[in-house]
């Protein structure tokens, strides 16, 4: 249960597949155009409910509640051993060898 005033994320279908631009590749055209917006919830609700939020700019937006207290999880990825090798290689070629 999300409470009124909580920071949440909502989801909308902007265009159904049949409403989309004709100038799209087939693999894109078979999907809807979807939209996500974040804001302060205007009334208590459960995930999946149709709700209204007030965004950071003060705009009222409505849509399906999909995420309570959304946060970012992107990071620096996992180990890519090749990156270490590039560093070693360019240092060796630039500074190594002659002396």
């Amino acid at each position, binding site marked *: 249960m999300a409470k009124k005033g909580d920071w949440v994320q909502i989801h909308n279908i*902007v*265009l159904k597949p049949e*409403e*989309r*631009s004709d*100038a*799209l*590749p087939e*693999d*894109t055209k078979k*999907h*809807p*155009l*979807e*939209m*996500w*917006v*974040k*804001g302060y919830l205007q009334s208590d609700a459960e995930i999946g409910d149709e709700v209204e939020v007030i*965004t*950071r*700019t*003060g*705009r009222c937006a409505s849509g399906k509640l999909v995420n309570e207290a959304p946060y*970012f999880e*992107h*990071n*620096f*990825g*996992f180990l*890519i051993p*090749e*990156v270490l*090798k*590039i*560093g070693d*290689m*360019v*240092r060796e*070629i*630039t*500074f190594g060898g002659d002396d």
Partner: protein
Amino acid sequence: MDNSYAAIMARKNEIIRASVGMDYSSFEYDGIGFDYEAMMAATGYTLPELQRVQSLFSVGNTPLIELKNLTTLARKCAPKGKGARIFIKDEATNPSGSFKARRSCTSVYQAKKLGYKGVVTATSGNYGAAVACHAAMAGLKCIVVQECYDSRGIGQPEIIEKARKCEALGAEVVQLTVGPELFSTVLRLLEETGYFNASLYTPFGIAGVETLGYEIAQQFRTKYDRDPDVVVCTNAGGGNLTGTARGLLKADCRAKVIGASVNLTGLHMASDEQFNKKSFTTGHTGFGVPFCVNPDRSDVPRSAARPLRYMDRYVTVTQGSVFFITEALASLEGLEKGPAGNTALAAAFRIAQDLDEDQCIVVQETEYTGAGKHINPQLSFARQNGIDIHFGDPKDEIPGKSIILPAHPSLIQVTDVDLDRVRRSNIKNAVGTHKNELTDQDIQYLIDETNSNEEFVRNVIANL
């Protein structure tokens, strides 16, 4: 109000006029062309005024750094006596972390001056962070609209980082799945809010980049008592190259201007399935080439970014080469930067090897780096998406299938884009169905647009 896609697009011209505060129709010629210089002059800002506005936002006067170790590495790959000195303009030191700061602060300043309460911009890139940054400084509200996710809801890490940064700077971020209809969402938001359209492609934005080219010339003359020989610009929508080249010309600097894009040939930019198969979300051929052919495919009636007018040469580099050079920049120069901005650096590293040792080549930007927007997460994301990453010869790289990291720096190459072919496509696109109605003014417009000559233009038209 009818908010269907068709209805919003039908209201496009009136929404743009209200949201940019500029009547584009006043620059149109009777024929196919328009008065580009009149449009640029309509900003009302001279170069010194632009510099003053930018200084209000602490933008510009970024360091020009000589990359001595990278130059040494290039010389080890070059014939004796070859290997120009490589310099980089550290634009990541602008507030918001990229050259886009120059582009956004004039737009935000203009919005504030005209009394708008906020700004809207459509961008998945650094420009969003720049607009959010300057809107924060100016006390304006800001909405950034991003193409961010594929239909599985999986987002490009680089774009998600940009969302984070925009939110951190107080902006509202609207995220969409893949598709050019993003434009209609932007139009609807402009209509709903009455905010200023801080498009990447207005004259305000492009004029703002002129200070970058001008600064390069001034810094070179002050520090080295000479002009650079070559300036390389990462090219996507064309604004970076256009503004820089115009600034160089305003400083009377005749350095050759070379555009560089990451080669993403074969990947469709509006494809849902291919969206997360690319490891560069900007600076690539998917934007670079179409925007040269038709600059007015942007979100304003006439784009101020017209790179074909200023390009002396246009080259592509591979994704693997840009990742390699980004790591080399960190390991050899102690400069950890975002990969996309290093597209021009990969090209410059190779082009330097054709120039004499006493010549100077400038890469005119760097961009900030961070979680998601860094070679490590971007290569991780590629590997997770089934892209084959290995050492080898970058010429074998297939965009969307492989990323080939050069097994040796001497394998980094540039591939020339056939500019005459791009010019022919540009002319064909501009002429459209008007082949038999062209005036002398139209011909001159096409010469200017393609940086060519009358014989070339008339020859192309005759063969349409």
